[in-house]
């Protein structure tokens, strides 16, 4: 459990001008925890771009808000979105940890007034064949997936995509990052502000219990041998209650009687009261005796720090409380006035009329210590730069077998075992669901759809946090462009180890700067996000794992998807073959899954070229010249061609005959991961080539689609040749096979 340091305690004394009591120490401890205060990262987060013409609300509120233009109703519409981690709880109690991770981010969205219409998840687990941790890792996967499924499905929000990667560094620290997005009109936006002196402060939703006490501080320290004893710190979720809370809150907002609202997430009642007061520069006075409780004998500290789920705090216009109460009564939820907004800027907590805590809101919420943690050292690297001698002197390999190995690897195989457990269609907006380059959700009442992509690459970032971060921003934007959407804004989740270690802090700083550079370049400002530090167990840190969630806008239209659709079509590699050398090959999926090692640097990125490739593919897709489109990423050209060939649901796969000539040896040429490349199949190759020329990017005709077989020739030697059904069998069945328990 992280506690206030001696200097932090001195700062508390200076603010209060006296000794804090036990309850006050508890309040400061959670509000000034890394999780709530970003005390190690705030200094560097300021480097991120946060503004554009579309940004209505940037970082600092519960979620960022982007203008998406006018609907068919003539009103202006907006989207709210954000990503949050629930890493530590998901390790200790995978099902509830993941479930409440979904619940928490959904509340962040609907507390702004938006109705959640999509969720995506970025998951990281330890490897499933790990001799020591494999069986435990499988249970964590199953627990996390069923937790997300349970909460999202019951709440009624589609889980439309995500990603899932396995690495040994996540053995003791799985990552569960949940992204959520909601929609509303501009006139429906609400803020977490306690305005209007004398206005009632109303508690709504579930009763307060002892669950989740000190969850925020648990998430701010490393795991040790006895971390498993912290299971009581994990909250328990009730998605049915959350669904009622959603409907009741949106209905209550429509009464016009609510002036401010905020969910009770990390640090519960403490965080919601002081933040609402701080934002409005007001005070809040309330009595704990009035807080609905489901347990008896709770102390003031316990009530203040409880992270019981499905609770909201709202401030209503004085005299109109009954309009709010009647809505919550209709939905069968508790709604109780627990206090008032005051003019003294103080958070004054009473228990049966006796003051138990008295703290200035602004100092508590916004003046947490700010640390410039030492980072003047090279970021920690888990691998050498140079390739091993065995690689530089290698003989020719069987690329056909290597492709099958990649398609059956945990990272690249079909994740349908996961996403078929998620209701990805509820609310009937999902135009493109899981398994594509980007998910697309239409917005009813407008002619606009939102595309979204979630991506992280701890492998690249371990080799170079800055280059890795830039690459993943580029990849997300490329995913969006490949489905025809214009990237407009981003949210990020920064998952790192212990920031008090300079070589870890250096990773964080480099990654933040890389994200900032790329987001500025691609015009995708960061509108909010989350930082999860101390992802270490017994001194073993995870690889630096920033996860980006980027959203794009497009006109609503039938989607252009990955699979080849017809035989005899020209296959074009937009962006060209790309370049790579042995050093830049060391972070690829090929090196991971086929050679079982890691070295070197991430692929080289030319952001200017990348942007032009993206402009070209958007035009090609939007104008309807592409029958299929798929961007190259893990596993390079060969894996992307296989993915295009395996067909979608209910489709027979259409393969291709491909010929490339390259100065690179076959394994590098087929499996390198240089960015800025997209596969297109088209009936009008000359149009695609013209658009490429206009954007000054390469468009290489590499082959023709054909029935049921994929053949790839490299420098006139056939390297890959198999029925697409065979590849599909390997791809589709891999994950379930890996998850099967191994009995000794």
């Amino acid at each position: 459990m992280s506690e206030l340091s001696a200097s932090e305690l001195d700062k508390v004394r200076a603010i209060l001008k006296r000794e804090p009591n036990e309850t006050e120490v508890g309040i400061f401890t959670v509000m000034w925890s890394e999780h709530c205060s970003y005390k190690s990262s705030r200094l560097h987060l300021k480097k991120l771009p946060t503004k554009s013409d579309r940004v209505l609300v940037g970082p600092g509120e519960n979620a960022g808000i982007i203008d998406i233009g006018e609907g068919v109703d003539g009103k202006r519409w907006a989207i709210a979105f954000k990503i949050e981690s629930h890493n530590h709880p998901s390790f200790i109690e995978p099902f509830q940890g993941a479930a409440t991770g979904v619940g928490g981010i959904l509340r962040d969205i609907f507390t702004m007034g938006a109705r959640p219409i999509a969720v995506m998840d970025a998951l990281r687990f330890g490897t499933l064949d790990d001799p020591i941790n494999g069986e435990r890792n499988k249970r964590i996967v199953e627990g996390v997936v069923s937790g997300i499924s349970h909460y999202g499905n019951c709440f009624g929000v589609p889980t439309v995509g995500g990603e899932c990667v396995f690495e040994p560094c996540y053995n003791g620290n799985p990552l569960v990052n949940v992204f959520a997005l909601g929609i509303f009109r501009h006139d429906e936006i609400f803020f977490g502000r306690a305005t209007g002196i004398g206005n009632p402060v109303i508690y709504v939703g579930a009763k307060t219990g002892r669950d989740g006490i000190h969850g925020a501080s648990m998430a701010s320290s490393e795991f040790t041998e006895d971390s498993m004893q912290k299971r009581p710190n994990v909250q328990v979720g009730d998605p049915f209650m959350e669904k009622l809370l959603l409907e009741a809150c949106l209905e209550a907002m429509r009464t016009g009687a609510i002036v401010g609202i905020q969910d009770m997430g990390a640090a519960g009642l403490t965080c919601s009261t002081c933040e609402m007061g701080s934002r409005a520069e007001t005070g809040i006075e309330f009595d704990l005796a009035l807080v609905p409780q489901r347990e008896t004998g709770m102390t003031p500290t316990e009530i203040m720090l409880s992270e019981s789920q499905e609770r909201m705090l709202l401030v209503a216009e004085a005299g109109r409380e009954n309009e709010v109460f009647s809505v919550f009564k209709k939905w069968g939820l508790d709604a109780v006035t627990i206090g008032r907004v005051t003019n003294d800027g103080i958070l004054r907590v009473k228990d049966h009329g006796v003051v138990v805590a008295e703290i200035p809101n602004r100092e508590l919420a916004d003046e947490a210590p700010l640390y410039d943690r030492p980072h003047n050292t090279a970021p920690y690297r888990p691998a050498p730069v140079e390739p091993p001698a065995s690689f530089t002197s290698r003989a020719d390999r069987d690329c056909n077998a290597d492709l099958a190995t990649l398609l059956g690897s945990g990272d690249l195989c079909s994740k349908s075992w996961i996403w078929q457990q998620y209701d990805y269609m509820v609310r009937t907006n999902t135009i493109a669901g899981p398994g594509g380059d980007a998910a697309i959700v239409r917005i009813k009442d407008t002619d606009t759809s939102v595309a979204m992509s979630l991506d992280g690459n701890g492998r690249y970032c371990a080799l170079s946090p800055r280059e890795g971060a830039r690459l993943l921003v580029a990849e997300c934007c490329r995913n969006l462009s490949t489905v025809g959407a214009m990237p407009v804004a981003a949210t990020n989740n920064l998952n790192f180890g212990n920031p008090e270690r300079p070589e870890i802090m250096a990773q964080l700083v480099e990654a933040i700067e890389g994200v900032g550079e790329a987001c500025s370049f691609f015009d995708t400002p960061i509108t909010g996000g989350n930082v999860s530090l101390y992802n270490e167990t017994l001194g073993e840190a995870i690889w630096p794992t920033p996860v980006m969630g980027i959203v794009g806008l497009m006109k609503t239209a039938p989607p252009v998807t990955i699979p080849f659709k017809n035989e005899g079509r020209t296959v074009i590699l937009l962006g060209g073959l790309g370049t790579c050398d042995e050093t830049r090959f060391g972070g690829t999926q090929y090196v991971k899954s086929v050679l079982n090692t890691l070295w070197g640097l991430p692929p080289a990125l030319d952001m200017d070229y990348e942007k032009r490739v993206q402009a070209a593919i958007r035009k090609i897709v939007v104008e309807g010249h592409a029958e299929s489109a798929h961007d190259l990423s893990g596993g390079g050209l060969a894996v992307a061609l296989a993915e295009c060939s395996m067909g979608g649901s209910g489709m027979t796969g259409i393969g291709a005959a491909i010929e490339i000539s390259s100065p690179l040896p076959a394994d590098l040429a087929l499996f390198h991961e240089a960015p800025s490349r997209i596969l297109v199949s088209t009936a009008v190759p000359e149009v695609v080539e013209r658009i490429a020329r206009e954007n000054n990017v390469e468009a290489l005709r590499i082959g023709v689609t054909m029935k049921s077989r994929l053949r790839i020739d490299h420098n006139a030697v056939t390297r890959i040749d198999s029925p697409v059904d065979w590849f599909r069998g390997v791809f589709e069945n891999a994950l379930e096979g890996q998850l099967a328990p191994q009995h000794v």
Partner: protein
Amino acid sequence: MRFGVVVFPGSNCDHDAWYAVSKNLGHSAQFIWHDSSSLGEVDAVILPGGFSYGDYLRCGAIAKFSPVMTAVRDFASRGGLVVGICNGFQVLVESGLLPGALLRNRELKFVCRPVTIRVETTNSPFTCRASKGQTLIVPVAHGEGCYFADDATLASLKRDDRVIFRYMDNPNGSLDDIAGICNQSRNVMGMMPHPERAADALLGCTDGRVIFESMLQFLSAKKPVLA
């Protein structure tokens, strides 16, 4: 035609059903709150998917006690068309309006994907515009959709031509591949697949429309039941 879409606390496909019949098919649709004792002026009732009352105890077990179900029973007894989709099917079974039970999926996991179902009879208000043996692609999304009934019930369902749909690729272990059944009077149907999710070309499939179009044809040929 006027559709009523019942909203229980925890229903989450209510809006989807409303959108399908009103926006995709162009008919009027209204929501009916669970505590109302009347259905209002409607020609057909949809019990939508979701997790009514959190599906605590058993799926649909609490919903059967809600006031609106008394009105639904009454409407059905007078020949009104009632279709229960997914959780709505579970509610109909729990309410005794349809026989059998819906158990946890054989794989014990929630399953969401398009499935192919076959129209087993056109002798129903829900399939009169389809053809026998026609296959439809319609999504499922449920954790408890494994249809079960005792031998006698199963025999009577088959004898009376009351199996409306069967799965071609059974996703949940349902007995005899049953995906949808109707009652003895043929005016109440329950099905696990979601036709309202297959009613909009933009979402990739419109095979579910034939179910709503059948209901519309049936109703326009017949004097509507007054609620």
